[in-house]
């Protein structure tokens, strides 16, 4: 029997506003499959986003959904999670939203180890505003604001998050939805700040400027570079630059989770 997405979607809001072939739909499907595997009741899930194409995802999800200001999704999510530690709080945002204007919140949520799952749909570009370069646009790639090629080096997000103190760091990609769903499920189930980068495609704004206007070509470009962590580890150093590792890259299960620590304080003071 085929999987029924309806209980999780606001069906009447479809068709969605993304371009045909956009990777965000794959991420949303993978999220739903992971919610379903975990048997999370949609009424107990809050999905929070910022601004941009990816941040339109919550509008299609039949849950508590909050579409906030540019870059600030994690701060709103933090307020929700602190007041209702029993709720499942997920943030989904794009690379520009979460790593440029929202970069400060990203590293501090990781440091705090608050039990929020952060999904960054990394399509290497500001899509909604018209293809400007983001902190994850590859060096040399073209963008609306980098007509001669991007002059800035890009973030390695898992490294950034690991350094900031995230207790769960993973990466998936839109070329493998099933694997992505498994990774997301692990992230959702993790008790602490879980960061998941999804390497995704914006063939419209990134691809057209970089000889990958066809979404299938771009997804293939992504898939060909994705290597399971173990295989990636066995590669020669020179080859590593051409690929990226996928899977759970780092996990530490026993680190104190922030809201649990706060609840302990409340209990102690009320005793």
């Amino acid at each position, binding site marked *: 029997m085929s999987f029924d997405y309806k209980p999780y979607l606001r069906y009447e809001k479809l068709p969605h506003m993304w371009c045909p072939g956009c990777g965000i739909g794959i991420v949303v499907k993978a999220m739903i499959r992971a919610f379903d595997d975990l048997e999370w009741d949609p009424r107990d899930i809050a999905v929070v986003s910022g601004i941009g194409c990816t941040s339109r995802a919550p509008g299609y999800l039949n849950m508590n959904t909050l579409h906030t200001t540019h870059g600030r999704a994690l701060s*709103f999510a933090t307020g929700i999670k602190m007041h209702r530690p029993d709720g499942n709080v997920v943030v989904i945002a794009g690379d520009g939203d979460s790593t440029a204007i929202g970069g400060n919140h990203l590293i501090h949520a990781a440091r705090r180890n608050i039990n929020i799952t952060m999904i960054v749909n990394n399509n290497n570009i500001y899509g909604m505003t018209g293809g400007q370069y983001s902190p994850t646009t590859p060096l040399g790639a073209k963008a609306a604001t980098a007509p001669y090629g991007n002059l800035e080096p890009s973030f390695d997000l898992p490294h950034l998050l690991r350094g900031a103190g995230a207790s769960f760091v993973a990466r998936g990609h839109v070329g493998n939805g099933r694997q992505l769903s498994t990774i997301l499920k692990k992230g959702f189930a993790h008790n602490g700040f879980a960061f998941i980068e999804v390497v995704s495609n914006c063939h419209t704004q990134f691809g057209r400027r970089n000889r990958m206007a066809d979404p299938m070509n771009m997804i293939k470009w992504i898939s060909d570079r994705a290597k399971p962590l173990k295989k990636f580890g066995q590669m020669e150093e020179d080859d590593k630059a051409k690929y990226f590792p996928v899977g759970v890259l780092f996990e530490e299960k026993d680190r104190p989770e922030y809201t649990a620590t706060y609840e302990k304080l409340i209990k102690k003071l009320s005793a």
Partner: protein
Amino acid sequence: MKKNMDDVRFWPGNIVVAEAAVAAGCNFFGGYPITPSSEVAAHMALLLPKVGGHFIQMEDEMAAMGTVIGASLAGAKSLTATSGPGFSLKLENLGFGYIVEAPCVVVNVMRGGPSTGLPTQPAQADVMQARWGTHGDHPTIALTPAFHQEIYMETIRAFNLAEQFRMPVILLLDEVLGHLSEGVIPPKPGSFEIINRTKTTASPEDYVPYDTSEGDVPPFAPYFAGYRWHTTGLNHDRTGFPTTDPDTVTFDEKRLMRKVTGNRELIDKVEYFQADDAEIGIFAFGSTARAAMVAVKQARAKGIKAGLMRPLTIWPFPNNQVLAFSKQVKTIIVPEMNLGQIVYEVERSVHSDMPIHRINRVGGVPINPSEILAGIEEAA
């Protein structure tokens, strides 16, 4: 009222805010350190976990405002406190609070500006920013208490108004009020009104997040209560989903404004001192109103009939009350710790040939009574 000295607390204004907030039912604070408001945060960090509430110091001012709205949407009564530079940073998310209709209270303990300005010294130069700071049309409620007992009661009123009208409410203090210590008698719990936002009675299936069939303030459903509604900073229709339909957007923006303009009798609050027979009027708020009160007494001792009007609700501006006051006095003097801001509202409110005198001071030193007295004597 006879004071039982055991009931008196000698607190700086910032501590009064925190104490009163908790008394009003505040159970969430998100903040960021900034002079001269930081004591509010420190005291909330002390109080909140004891009453089962949550305090968090965020990585920046925008994030602090984000937590406050997020917690509010999850059902909390939330507070943040800041000062000029931080208030500037909070403004975008403050606007988000207005459009999604998230009750919360934002304290701005005003200091000298612009920019970093005079961090440890008072000003009243954010009074127009409080009204117009965030972009786009939006309603504003801002309160300006002048005495510490009043700070206590106005903090409670700020929460009540926020809850009643589902919107952020701004509490404007200044560095003098924030740091000056003064006796306060906290009212006994149960002796003052506490208003909580109207919760929806609709079933989750029938819930319409911005249903205004019963009035301009839509009934609320917190997150994780079975109601799966969508919240967005985009203009939205009654279902909460984005729309660009001109009629729908116009209706909704006018409704947001009407929450304030249509409920003036519940929001307005003006105090008078020796105003009944006054010939020289003074309009002042915050710590400047304290100096004005002394100046009125000094003028009266000299036989000059001076009187003070001071708004506790400064936004929406009490235009009608100022007009009525102007009909009784020969002139109005507007002392304020800025280079002339609220005076424009006073001028707009009175009949056109009414002389309005300004007393302005920046530089970080409070306006003292003798300056106002000199103004009174000149005008008399």
